[in-house]
């Protein structure tokens, strides 16, 4: 079961103390192989009789198209862009992830608040402001972080999508060399990810190896997270209101 624990205050409209599903997040920089492993993991889970919802940034019905339009213009200030992303994030949490968890599915999230925090922080937004903003985010059952260095990342980026404007920091780094900005931006971003990894206890997987090696490590971790999904308490019990102590622990501002 997924305990209903939040990074900050419990957001309005969310009830109960736990949900029978599992929230598994795959984090990592662009090109590290997240989407490949998620595609493999989805099938792997379904083969074990577990229903899967997969979701990722900008896939909300509400704000997805708006963000895509805004990014094409390349003109938004970081605060507006981050709040736009936050809108998209909450919409997916509320309308995709919570219902899936309530139904007893595994929700697989391709990136979570951490990518958004890391990207914003290196563009000069304060980390405190970002972490406060995402206080409404549900704490996942597991955050799997695919860790890589720039040297190993380069061939993957070249063989998949090439150098993306935003993923090489061209929106704010002064150099006109895409290669230089890519190396600088990703080095910076990976440092930020590692800071978040230790702060939020990510399950770190070395993603420098081959696809079979990485997937073995991922599926081993997921196996632990989904173990016992059949033996959880029935939904009616999980949805009971949290005890007084638990409520005060998640709602400190109401005291």
């Amino acid at each position, binding site marked *: 079961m997924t305990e209903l624990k939040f990074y900050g205050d419990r957001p309005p409209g969310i009830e109960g103390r736990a949900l029978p599903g599992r929230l598994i997040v795959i984090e990592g920089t662009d090109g590290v192989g997240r989407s490949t492993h998620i*595609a*493999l993991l989805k099938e792997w889970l379904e083969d074990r009789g577990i229903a899967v919802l997969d979701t990722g940034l900008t896939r909300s019905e509400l704000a997805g198209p708006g963000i895509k339009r805004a990014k094409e213009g390349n003109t938004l200030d970081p605060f507006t862009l981050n709040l736009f992303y936050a809108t998209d994030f909450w919409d997916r949490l509320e309308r995709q992830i919570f219902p899936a968890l309530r139904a007893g599915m595994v929700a697989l999230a391709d990136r979570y608040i951490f990518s958004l925090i890391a990207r914003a922080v290196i563009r000069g937004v304060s980390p405190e402001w970002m972490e406060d903003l995402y206080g409404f985010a549900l704490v996942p059952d597991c955050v799997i972080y695919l860790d890589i260095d720039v040297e190993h990342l380069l061939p993957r980026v070249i*063989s998949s999508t090439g*150098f993306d404007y935003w993923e090489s920091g061209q929106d704010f780094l002064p150099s006109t060399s895409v290669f230089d900005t890519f190396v600088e931006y990703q080095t910076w971003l990976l440092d930020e990810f590692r800071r978040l990894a230790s702060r939020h206890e990510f399950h770190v997987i070395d993603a420098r190896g*081959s*696809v079979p090696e990485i997937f073995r490590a991922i*599926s081993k971790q997921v196996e632990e997270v989904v173990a016992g999904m059949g033996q959880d308490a029935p939904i009616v019990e999980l949805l009971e209101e949290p005890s007084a102590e638990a409520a005060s622990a998640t709602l400190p501002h109401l005291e």
Partner: protein
Amino acid sequence: MSSYNGQELRGRLFVVEGIDGSGKSTQLDLLHKWLMSQGYLVVFSEWNSSPIVKTTTKRGKKRHLLSPVSFSLIHAADFANRIHAEILPALQAGAIVLADRYVYTAFARDAVRGLSKDWLRRLYSFAVKPSLAFYFDVPLDEAVHRIMEGRPALKFYEAGLDLELADDPEESFRIYQGMIRAEYEQLVKEFDLVRMNATDTLVRQQKQMRELVMPHLKGVMRADGGSIRDTLKEQGLRGRYLLETLRKKQAQA
């Protein structure tokens, strides 16, 4: 070794040139597949394909808005975008870049349209110098035959109709391609292009290309070992969501 601003690049740039119907794209495609099968990291870049610029070029061609100067400039803009966003970063990272047409296409076509050759060379001075540039040499009659066989309607600029060489598109095409071919002859000497006999068998041409490319491949970056296919086999999966993922990525790119 390919170089940029006098600086050696880790990657290698190979270029094909030639008039329409010379078979250069077929040969480059075969080379591309061979290099990939050898585990090399390959990036392909085609003339006139910048995602930012190409719609403007298309609009200009469709509405016949391009004069010789604007024709030259819009193609240079397309090329500059591809150099800075695709070609140069891939070469700096150590990959192989294959270009279907390069600056020599602009040098030939724009010279035919009356632009100064010196000016063109200065305009394109930001280009990366290729490791090898192949020129696919084909007799005019053979090229015209190949094009007319497969493609009945010639486009306005493709046939050089903007040059008012002839009223009949086919006749104009022939004259125009002949003029470009004469320009290429000069370029082969000026830039040491590798002349390929484009009337030779496809198999022999490919063999020759590979032999010429091979000595340049020492120390070039290879792709990671351990494929997705190995994972599928090991885990007993079929990969039913992989295609969808790939498609989304392509749409993104």
